[in-house]
């Protein structure tokens, strides 16, 4: 009887590390055990529990869509014990992961719809997996609009990828819009001069205000710092998005990822949600029903 222990991490090799900003790095991982590789599937929006032995464990979203078996990418911001330790690792080092966990985004359901992806800061990481998935199966989805709010150019994640989309996305029927906060940011300013309809100064909500977006046949997907949700949702509902058309991902200090440790329980007693297994992706409707989720 060998029940798989969901708490036991699996070994993965870091095959590449990219420095993205002063605090964020992109890690390319590959599972080392060939037996697991075959079974390892993930969907956009799912996350892993990542361990550095002796330091601890932290939940991290997978930030790409699955292509090669057993490979995945993580974009990690260093904020504390575990994430700092991960940042010290180099190509060839090991990380220990378990998962994937969580529901992920309903990519099936969203097929044949337009996608409106709204991200703030690090929130772009899980949304990138949605975007990649939609691009991979491009014909299944309609117009894709990405709205990304950053503090300044140097804090922008996946810069090259998105600048390319900014300039050449039309070919793919992808609109990429950028909002930046720092007024002294010359790089972003130049982008704004280049296409003032796609780059502007302000919070990400600015982009929604400026754009003509309609809820018809569209799903909105949001990810960003917790304060962002309220404002973005307000903009969207004003434009007629219904609460089930809006998806968002949530964060909690989860220790297990599999609905045991209790850290991510939210809600009042008539609607209790676990961010880890009922989420991390929720509709705005869930958030309305579930106290404290947002």
């Amino acid at each position, binding site marked *: 009887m060998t029940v798989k222990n*969901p708490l036991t991490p699996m070994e993965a090799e870091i095959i590449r590390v990219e420095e993205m900003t002063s605090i964020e790095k992109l890690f390319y991982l590959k599972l080392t055990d060939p037996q697991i590789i075959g079974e390892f599937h993930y969907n956009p929006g799912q996350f892993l529990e990542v361990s550095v032995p002796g330091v601890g464990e932290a939940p991290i979203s997978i930030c790409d869509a699955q292509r090669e078996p057993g490979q995945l990418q993580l974009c990690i911001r260093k904020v504390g014990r575990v994430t700092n330790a991960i940042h010290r690792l180099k190509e060839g080092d090991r990380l220990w992961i378990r998962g994937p966990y969580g529901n992920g985004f309903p990519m099936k359901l969203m097929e044949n719809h337009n996608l409106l992806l709204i991200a703030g800061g690090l929130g772009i990481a899980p949304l990138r997996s949605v975007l990649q998935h939609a691009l991979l199966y491009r014909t299944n989805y309609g117009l894709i609009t990405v709205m990304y709010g950053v503090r300044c150019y140097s804090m922008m994640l996946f810069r090259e990828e998105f600048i390319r989309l900014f300039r050449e996305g039309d070919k793919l029927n992808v609109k990429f819009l950028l909002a930046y906060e720092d007024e002294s940011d010359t790089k972003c300013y130049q982008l704004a001069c280049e296409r003032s309809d796609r780059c502007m100064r302000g919070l990400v909500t600015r982009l929604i205000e400026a754009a003509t977006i309609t809820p018809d046949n569209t799903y909105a997907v949001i990810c960003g710092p917790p304060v962002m949700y309220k404002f973005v949702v307000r903009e969207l509902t004003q434009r007629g998005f219904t609460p089930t058309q809006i998806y968002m991902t949530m964060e909690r*200090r989860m220790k297990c990822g599999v609905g045991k440790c209790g850290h991510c329980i939210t809600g009042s*007693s*008539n609607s209790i949600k676990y961010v880890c297994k009922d989420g991390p992706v929720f509709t705005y409707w869930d958030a309305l029903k579930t106290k404290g989720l947002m």
Partner: protein
Amino acid sequence: MYKKLLKDDLENFIFILKKFGVVHAPVREAGRVYEFTELTDSKILQLNYTRTMIPPKKFFLKPKEQLYILNRREGFKEIVDDSKIVLLGVHACDINALNLLDRIYIDQFPDRYYKTRRENTIIIGVSCKPDEYCFCTSTNSSYALEGFDLFMHEIDDSYIIRIGSLKGFQIVCESENLLAEASSNDIKEFKRAEAERLKEFTLHLNVNGIQDILDASYDHPVWQENADICFGCGSCNLVCPTCRCYDTADFLNLDLKTGVRVRRWDSCMLKQHGLVAGGLNFRPTRVERLYNRFNCKMSLSEDSLNCVGCGRCTVYCPADINFVEVLKQVGED
């Protein structure tokens, strides 16, 4: 199939139980509270106890335990404890609480540690008498229908024994000489004793629609009143048989290469419970945490309460916050 065990034969019965595992039972040493500990001498057994401070969940989800031996290069090696134990004298509420815990720890993504120990443990229930803090009749957990191997109901000078599992049946077979078939008179006695027991409950809580009552009462002043005297010390969670939050941490050895991953019970009343990256706290105030705890206790899922009415959280709160009293106040106006 109901059996009968004379109290005089209890000691012999325990002797047989020892074949099935190390027997743990409620005892109370001088200066201590009732606790389940290894029964080294059947004389110290106290089957007519009120409640243990720490519920029997401690055998399955341990207060603190090492999960893995870790190694920088080789990763994580599970530490499995597959010792066999017998828990003698578990109350119905605690058995029902374990059934609730099973839904979390076994049903989806089974927790290896919990599950193994659950499988390796024999549970022998015992009937009890309520005190002024028990309200398990209100939470529908005053009687155990499943989740035990044997259940002993006290009547006069003997126990009527219910068999709850195959393992229980095996014990009965082993103790053939000690157990008699319960007579119809015994069954009558058993029913009478149960009816008597029900009459002794003085504390009642109406849980009808409590989920919506709580949901609608976020602004009720009772939360703030209690948050003012609440320490946020987590005692209520830590004594609760259905609370199950835990935290994990890694520790390195002197060689900086090997170490252990440990977990320990956590509590949603503690401030750091709702912290996330960037220092944001989803439940920064005690009011929010208190509200959350009561909500969590009143709903494990849409179809089930998460409280078995054992009264521990009230008895062991150093600030004397009364669980049932709070819920009553919320419900009344």
